[in-house]
């Protein structure tokens, strides 16, 4: 690996961290916040979906569990606003715990069946949260907000989300180079063969699944705090689950860079289209984008450029 790479990345991160200093409008801070959030979601989905080849269609469930757990912890423990943000870390832990319980039986199922069972799981969690009064039921939950100017609070949220993104990406990067990641890739290629090569497939899968639930959980907690009010529809929507998968696969699953590219492109395109075009037309163009990309780059953007770059 080229030595210039880490330096360039470090400079990029510092530039991103310094971005609020030049005094951009709150709109740009919020926009970057959502870009970071989707990068986190797509990259952590990639642990199990990209490296392991187990396409989870229920990852919004962990995002939502994190959001609701944070809100509930904050209201029950009467946390001051700043500590609420920290409460998103145990909330991520709760999401990981749920992943452990659900993942144990579900990860025995392979292929599209795994996708459907996780899809069902996301629905069950969504409907359960809507029906349980303790979790706000159909009304949702309110969170206390910092009583400082909007711009300052948005800047804090921006920096915290950036930090979480850097941590997620570091984990993703190391995973791609570790024995753990190699084991997962072997599972994706052929699980039976991997098992005969003494790779503990069941253990690796559950570890990857739990890890890939933790980061969305924390991100969900931050998102809940950012909105100040959460409702099941905002965080458990099936569209979020599908979007996460699409972002990762769009960029190219199984690489650490792919989900980042996918998440950035799709968030920017979606935002740009909804600003400049009529809602329906914007969605039609957005849909056409998926079709064009799959036809011309059926194995993701990363794969397409790697083939162009490498002279094989």
């Amino acid at each position, binding site marked *: 690996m080229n030595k210039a790479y880490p330096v360039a990345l470090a400079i990029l991160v510092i530039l991103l961290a310094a971005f609020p200093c030049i005094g951009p409008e709150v709109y740009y801070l919020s926009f970057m916040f959502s870009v970071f959030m989707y990068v986190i979601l797509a990259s952590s989905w990639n642990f199990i979906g990209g490296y392991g080849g187990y*396409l989870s269609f229920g990852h919004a469930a962990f995002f939502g569990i994190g959001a609701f757990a944070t809100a509930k912890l904050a209201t029950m423990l009467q946390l001051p606003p700043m500590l609420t943000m920290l409460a998103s870390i145990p909330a991520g832990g709760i999401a990981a715990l749920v992943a452990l319980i659900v993942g144990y*039986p*579900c990860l*025995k*199922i*392979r*292929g*599209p*069946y795994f996708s*459907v*069972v996780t*899809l*069902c*799981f996301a*629905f*069950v969690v969504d*409907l*359960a949260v*809507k*029906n349980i009064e303790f979790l706000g039921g159909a009304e949702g939950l309110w969170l206390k907000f910092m009583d400082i100017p909007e711009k300052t609070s948005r800047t804090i949220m921006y920096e915290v989300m950036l930090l979480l993104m850097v941590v997620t990406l570091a984990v993703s990067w190391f995973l791609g180079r570790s024995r753990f990641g190699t084991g997962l890739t072997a599972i994706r290629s052929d699980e039976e063969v991997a098992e005969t090569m003494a790779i503990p497939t069941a253990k690796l899968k559950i570890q990857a699944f739990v890890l890939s639930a933790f980061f969305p959980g924390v991100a969900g907690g931050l998102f809940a705090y950012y909105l100040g009010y959460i409702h099941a529809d905002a965080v458990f929507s*099936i569209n979020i689950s*599908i979007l996460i998968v*699409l972002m990762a*696969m*769009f960029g190219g699953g199984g690489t650490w860079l792919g989900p980042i590219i996918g998440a950035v492109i799709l968030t920017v395109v979606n935002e740009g289209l909804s600003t400049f075009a009529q809602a*329906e*037309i914007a*969605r*039609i163009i*957005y*849909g*056409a*984008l*998926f*079709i064009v*990309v*799959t*036809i011309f780059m*059926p*194995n993701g953007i990363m794969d397409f450029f790697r083939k162009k770059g490498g002279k094989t």
Partner: protein
Amino acid sequence: MDAVLIIQSLISGIMMGMVYALLGVGFSLTWGVMHVIHISHAAFGLIGAYLSYSLLQYCGVDPVVSAAVSVPLLFITACGLYQLLIRPITRAQNIVMASMILTFGLAIILENIMALIWKADPRVLTPTYSSGALIAGPFYFQYPHLVGFGLSVLGITAIYLFLKKTYTGMAVRAAWQQPEAAQLYGVNLYRISMITFALAVSTAGAGGISLALLNSFEPHSHNLWLIYLFLVVIVGGVGNVIGTALAGLIIGVITGLSMAFLPFQWVNLVTFGLLMIFLIFRPHGLIKQEGM
């Protein structure tokens, strides 16, 4: 609990289940034969529903008659779409994934075209007999529900007979069970894939019309329909027509019973919870399939 009420909701659950089975048959076939998970399948059903809505509203054509128009129309459209979109992605490493992303995009496009043409408010099919009902003893069946149910039973039977009795149907089954062997025996896989895809889309249209006779619909309804499709197809076993019909019945019984005993908002929760448990214990469907 009132026995009449239970039986009544059981029957309406079964009717609903059969309609989902008709919608699901094609989905199951494209998945089984072509390894294409067709996310926009339900959106095509919705197009069928909207076409029959417009034909009824502006020309006074009965939904059953308009099915005879929109089903062949969808068949031809689907042939074109196959050549244009589906065939190019058959060379992808992971065709399941590529097809899901592509058809997800197609579903977004279709949904928004429908929203542009027919606007986003919910619609209902109101044929001339919509207010009538068949009263048998203590039970009460609305005519549109009966027609929708009849249409779906007819549709599933037709697909079943096509696959069992006709030469093309047998070729489709051969391509599903042993693609290489089928090719050696002179089955043109591309042609069979195109026919399967077009057939699936046209049955989706018929299923959409049946469903529109039972429920109201709007441009984004296809998302919920799609989830029921997955339910029916997984329980029935991918590529299995009889299994799909059976799964429709079972899911109908479950939703019917939970409608009778549970508050409305818990019905879906129970259905999806049961499916999850089912999948964990029997991931390959109800019926053991030969030749897979």
